[in-house]
């Protein structure tokens, strides 16, 4: 079950700094949308506004409308929102005091699920979806932090998937990983879409070209252009997009 997101006139601030300006954009359900742009363009901030993690930072605020299948995210309890819109972060952050199994089910267990059978089933399902099951199925009791970097990130993906969100946000999920681990996660992304809407922030344009169906280009807090990935990368409409993609600036 994948949901679409409609963003209208989204503005965001860090204190007095206006970091997102009048963003209007639509995320297609069941698709993979990439957000690209140079450092500081607001792409991470944008994505964090989609699951209301932006406002967690002291001094940060956002205005505008974000609709998830018609529901106004900013009119609901953020805790509930974050169960529908999951997130994977740049640096893998498995809970260090928990085992692989505990990490995988942390989201549902800490929310109150106690039934051991349900937890086991959820863990296996999530770890399989994250293409990690075969590597850890005999060592579920291992510390979450004892896995390799790529495995840790897949564990974080499993942890997010276990909550069964309808949208998964990924904030530069591969930037701390080597090419092979990155390739595994990219294949994973391609497998996950359809029954999940994915939004990925990446500073690696080739990655956006490889995996996404739609791409949005942000620059200095503004949405410059958004379109079907193939068109954006071969015949961009805006000259700034072309300059960024061809590497002629920043």
């Amino acid at each position, binding site marked *: 079950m994948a949901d679409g997101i409609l963003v209208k006139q989204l503005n965001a601030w860090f204190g007095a700094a206006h970091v997102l300006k009048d963003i209007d954009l639509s995320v297609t359900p069941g698709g993979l949308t990439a957000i690209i742009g140079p450092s500081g363009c607001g792409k991470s901030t944008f994505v964090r506004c989609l699951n209301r993690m932006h406002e967690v930072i002291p001094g940060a605020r956002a205005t505008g409308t974000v609709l998830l299948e018609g529901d106004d995210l900013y009119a609901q309890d953020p*805790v509930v929102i*974050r169960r*529908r819109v999951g997130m994977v972060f740049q640096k893998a952050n498995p*809970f*260090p*005091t928990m085992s692989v199994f505990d990490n995988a089910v942390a*989201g549902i267990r*800490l*929310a109150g699920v106690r039934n051991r059978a349900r937890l086991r089933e959820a863990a296996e399902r999530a770890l399989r979806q994250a293409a990690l099951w075969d590597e850890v199925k005999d060592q579920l009791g291992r510390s979450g*932090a004892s896995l390799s970097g790529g495995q840790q990130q897949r564990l974080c993906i499993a942890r997010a998937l276990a909550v069964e969100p309808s949208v998964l946000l990924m904030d530069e999920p591969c930037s701390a990983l080597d090419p092979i681990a990155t390739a595994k996660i990219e294949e994973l992304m391609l497998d996950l879409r359809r029954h999940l809407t994915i939004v990925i922030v990446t500073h690696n344009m080739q990655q956006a070209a490889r995996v996404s169906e739609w791409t949005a280009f942000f620059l200095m807090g503004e949405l410059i252009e958004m379109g079907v990935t193939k068109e954006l990368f071969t015949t961009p409409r805006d000259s700034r997009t072309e300059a960024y993609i061809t590497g002629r600036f920043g």
Partner: protein
Amino acid sequence: MTTRGRHVKSAAIGGLTAVAALVVVTPLLLVFGFLLYQGAAAVNLDFFTHLPKPVGEVGGGMANAIVGSLILLALAAALGLPLGILGGMYLAESQDRRLPLILRFLADVLNGVPSIVIGIFAYTVLVLPMRRFSALAGGFALAVIMVPIVLRTTEEMLRLVPRTLREAGLGLGLSRWKVAVRVVLPTARAGIVTGVMVSIARVAGETAPLLFTAFGNRFWHGGLDQPIAALPLQIFAYAIAPYDDWHRQAWAGALVLIGLVFVVSLAARVATRGRYSAAR
């Protein structure tokens, strides 16, 4: 600088740091050694099981003082630890601007208040209304000393937990307090336990506040609302007395006191070790 010069300098600094470490450890070893030397002879089974003998008689022990110290520590912990840890959690997690600042300042001030003043405070608040000295008052005074230590170290340890872990918890759709209790607290467990042990070690040896709260007792205490013996008090009383036998018992008491703190620390470490320690 030449390679040789660099090596010489490196070795010199290395040597200096080793010497510094030795200088720090030496007093600890000397004290312990001295205590062992002076007190080991008097530490026997009687010491742990008998009550003090009447004035002038040889022999007897400090059983009541040992038990009394343990009871006072337990009371102090029961009162002080929850307050300190919860307070530390509040200071670390709160996003309020003013209140945490004030609290922190007050805690630091309280930390610096002489323990005898805290004793007087406890005397006024508990002993006078109750019209008697009591273990409760002693425990209360010790708790007041413990709270700022536990509070500040808990806060510091919680702050050391990386923000990314909190974000991970929040990102899963967990409420802030759940993240604080089930994710952040366990991760900081080792550090918090250290803070707790430091505070216990500190209050275990406090004598002044107990002078007019627990007061001391030659016999077993009759209840928590009665005066109670404590090792520091007993050591004090014996040390200033003119009897050699009591002097020896005072040394033994000091040795046992340090041993007590050591055992409690060890037990706390063992009891709270997690299966996986947080990488720090």
